[in-house]
């Protein structure tokens, strides 16, 4: 289906694995205007094709891989693409924004996205070129780890691969593109269930853009802005995401001992600073990215990918392990097996607590590290206790009890931020469409302590800001951009002058900003027909696609996407009771002397639903859905 818009190839590939047939999936320009690409486009495809009975692990589930219009246009930090499906971990929609080069190569092969349904009888790999789509027997690569599988295909192509964890349908298996993972909620298990070991894309297709000249200047300026911003130009390149661990600890937001505490006595030994001092070789990152937030570290004479913040926290403080060397090694092992480090870390911490309380004699103990690597291998191959751990925390709590401290929301394990030290992030975890995810939750912890120090305990304005951030990040992701590009939204001055009077006044204003923020949140996009230079995505979309674009349209695209994903989940049967957190976080104080150190989830949710235009059951009102044209029309 050809398109009048730049940035798109205009074609979406549909593959029916059961029939081994390929088609074009119809996606119109009208839909491009409404859903842009990436996760929002995928949400529309899922909404139209799955129903309340579709089992995540069944031929009927859809695996939807989509790029954004900026992918492959040279936009900074925009080599990203998205993978959405029904998650076997949450039984709901999940979406995973992934880096590496696959998205760019998919466009070179001539497609904006791939929609996969059915199931192959035998393991296969799929080759997509600008000429044809071929199915190949995967018997020679089935069983290989991630890097071995990738090297099988050589260079000059985009590779999307799973490891043993995906093959064995570990519920939190991931999919890899280069060394970047679509990590969360078991997208790799769906690919494994469908018997796809790899998808390889290549070709010579080029992406047309609407206004090349203006785009060139905009991208130059965008790179400059990223390089000049204290987070994307200094902090992330120098310390990576790992550099946040110390500040999280100071602000009592570092999940420790299965989220019992917010601080870890040995945090320095697993910090980003220590990583940089002892192990860092160089920075690395996705193509077209000036930030290069990834780390390359050396262990046992081998250069490997360094752990991200989440992994450091969850395989360090949260299991009371102070050996950074082991974390680096486990990070490598988990990546090679093709498994999400977040869910794996939280699941073993939960097993440790179950063991400590005498509920499950599994041999895992806080602070004991000699059996961890073997446990990860056992999970990937579903051996012994690994077979149970492969099901994730929610399933384990159904088997052994301990639901109050099984650290998940809607079945997805929480990230490394202890939300009793950042209650807005707590709300985000609870309402996030994909479950306990910090990013899809709105990432309010950035304002509550990581970058700015807004009052982390107040309920004030948290719902309003969460919604604003969720919508903007949803839209940025749909463009094909890395979410870190949205940091530009935070004024440089506030970051660089945390103790100044002006910053203090601004933080006070932020705390009381809900009336203003809600004007943006609730009024239709047509009232905001202006550009915002802190969001270069707006003009980039305009110059790439040729669509009419302004702040109002962008924020409405984000809001549409968030509501559409919600509607998929409503179809799957969720309601307000699912938007919650484990009891430990909502009914036990993190610090018994501080009555604010708890997530006041019901109050926060009430505000959130009201602003979103959702009823008390958490269901979007017909009026809002209609205004957003969430289903098209």
């Amino acid at each position, binding site marked *: 289906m050809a398109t009048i818009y730049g940035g798109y190839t205009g074609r979406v590939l549909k593959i029916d694995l059961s029939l081994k047939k390929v088609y074009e999936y119809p996606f119109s320009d009208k839909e491009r205007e409404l859903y842009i690409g990436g996760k929002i486009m995928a949400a529309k495809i899922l909404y139209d094709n799955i129903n309340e009975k579709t089992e995540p692990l069944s031929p009927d589930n859809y695996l939807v891989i989509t790029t954004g219009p900026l992918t492959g246009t040279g936009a900074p930090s925009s080599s990203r693409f998205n993978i959405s499906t029904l998650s076997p971990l949450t039984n709901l929609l999940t979406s995973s924004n992934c880096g590496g080069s696959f998205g760019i190569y998919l466009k070179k092969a001539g497609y904006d996205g791939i929609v996969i349904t059915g199931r192959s009888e035998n393991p296969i790999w799929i080759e997509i070129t600008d000429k044809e789509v071929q199915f190949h027997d995967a018997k020679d690569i089935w069983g290989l780890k991630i890097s071995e599988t990738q090297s099988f295909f050589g260079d000059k192509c985009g590779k999307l691969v799973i490891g043993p964890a995906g093959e064995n349908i570990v519920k939190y298996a991931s999919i890899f593109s280069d060394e970047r993972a679509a990590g969360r909620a078991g997208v790799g298990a769906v690919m494994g269930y469908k018997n796809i070991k790899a998808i390889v894309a290549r070709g010579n297709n080029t992406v047309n853009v609407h206004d090349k000249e203006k785009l060139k200047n905009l991208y130059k300026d965008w790179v400059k802005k990223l390089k000049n911003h*204290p*987070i*994307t130009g*200094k*902090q*992330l390149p*120098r*310390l*990576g*995401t*790992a*550099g*946040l661990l*110390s*500040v999280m600890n*100071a602000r009592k937001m570092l999940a420790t001992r299965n989220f019992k505490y917010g601080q870890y006595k040995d945090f*320095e030994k697993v*910090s980003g*600073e220590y990583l*940089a*001092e002892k192990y860092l070789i160089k920075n690395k990152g996705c193509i077209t990215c000036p930030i290069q*937030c990834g780390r390359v570290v050396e262990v046992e004479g081998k250069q490997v990918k360094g752990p991200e*913040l989440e992994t450091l926290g969850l395989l360090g403080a949260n299991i009371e392990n102070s050996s950074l060397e082991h974390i680096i090694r486990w990070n490598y092992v988990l990546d090679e097996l093709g498994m999400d480090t977040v869910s794996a870390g939280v699941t073993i911490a939960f097993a440790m607590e179950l063991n400590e309380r005498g509920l499950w004699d599994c041999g895992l103990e806080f602070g004991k590290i000699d059996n961890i690597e073997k446990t990860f291998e056992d999970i990937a191959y579903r051996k012994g206790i690994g077979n149970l751990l492969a099901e994730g925390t929610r399933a384990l709590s159904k088997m052994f009890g301990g639901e109050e401290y099984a650290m998940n929301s809607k079945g997805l394990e929480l990230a490394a931020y202890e939300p009793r030290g950042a209650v807005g992030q707590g709300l985000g975890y609870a309402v996030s469409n994909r479950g306990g995810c910090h990013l899809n939750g709105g990432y309010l912890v*950035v304002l509550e302590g*990581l*970058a700015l*120090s807004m009052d982390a305990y107040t309920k004030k304005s948290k719902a309003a800001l969460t919604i604003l951030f969720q919508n903007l990040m949803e839209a940025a992701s749909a463009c094909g951009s890395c979410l*870190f590009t949205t*940091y530009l939204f935070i004024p440089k001055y506030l*970051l*660089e*002058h*945390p*103790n*100044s009077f002006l910053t*203090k006044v601004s933080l006070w204003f932020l705390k009381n900003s809900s009336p203003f923020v809600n004007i943006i949140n609730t009024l239709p996009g047509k009232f905001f027909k202006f550009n915002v230079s802190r969001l270069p995505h707006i003009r980039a979309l305009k110059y790439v696609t040729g669509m009419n674009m302004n702040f109002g349209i962008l924020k409405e695209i984000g809001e549409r996407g968030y509501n559409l994903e919600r509607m998929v989940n409503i179809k799957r049967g969720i309601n307000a009771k699912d938007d919650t957190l484990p009891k430990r976080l909502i009914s036990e104080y993190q610090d018994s002397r501080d009555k604010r150190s708890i997530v006041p989830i019901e109050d926060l949710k009430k505000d959130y639903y009201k602003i979103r235009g959702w009823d008390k059951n958490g269901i979007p009102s017909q009026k809002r859905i209609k205004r957003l044209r969430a289903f098209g029309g």
Partner: protein
Amino acid sequence: MIKVRYFGILRLDIKKSFDEIEAQDVEVLINIISSKYNLDIDELKNSIVFVNGKNINELKGFKTKLYDCDEVQIFSPVAGG
């Protein structure tokens, strides 16, 4: 003696993670650190400072008094991730 711990980019720049310094308040401490490592005082004053786990903005700012064995954590002003 005040126990001082450095974090963030500051720590990478001065190549030091820990110091023991005599100082009666945060202002004096920051001045000593500035001359010890030849750091611009205004820039250093943009650090996020915790005294015994509390942000100085919740205490008396740079006038916060320090006592023997207090622990001060100094973070470069930005984070992100």
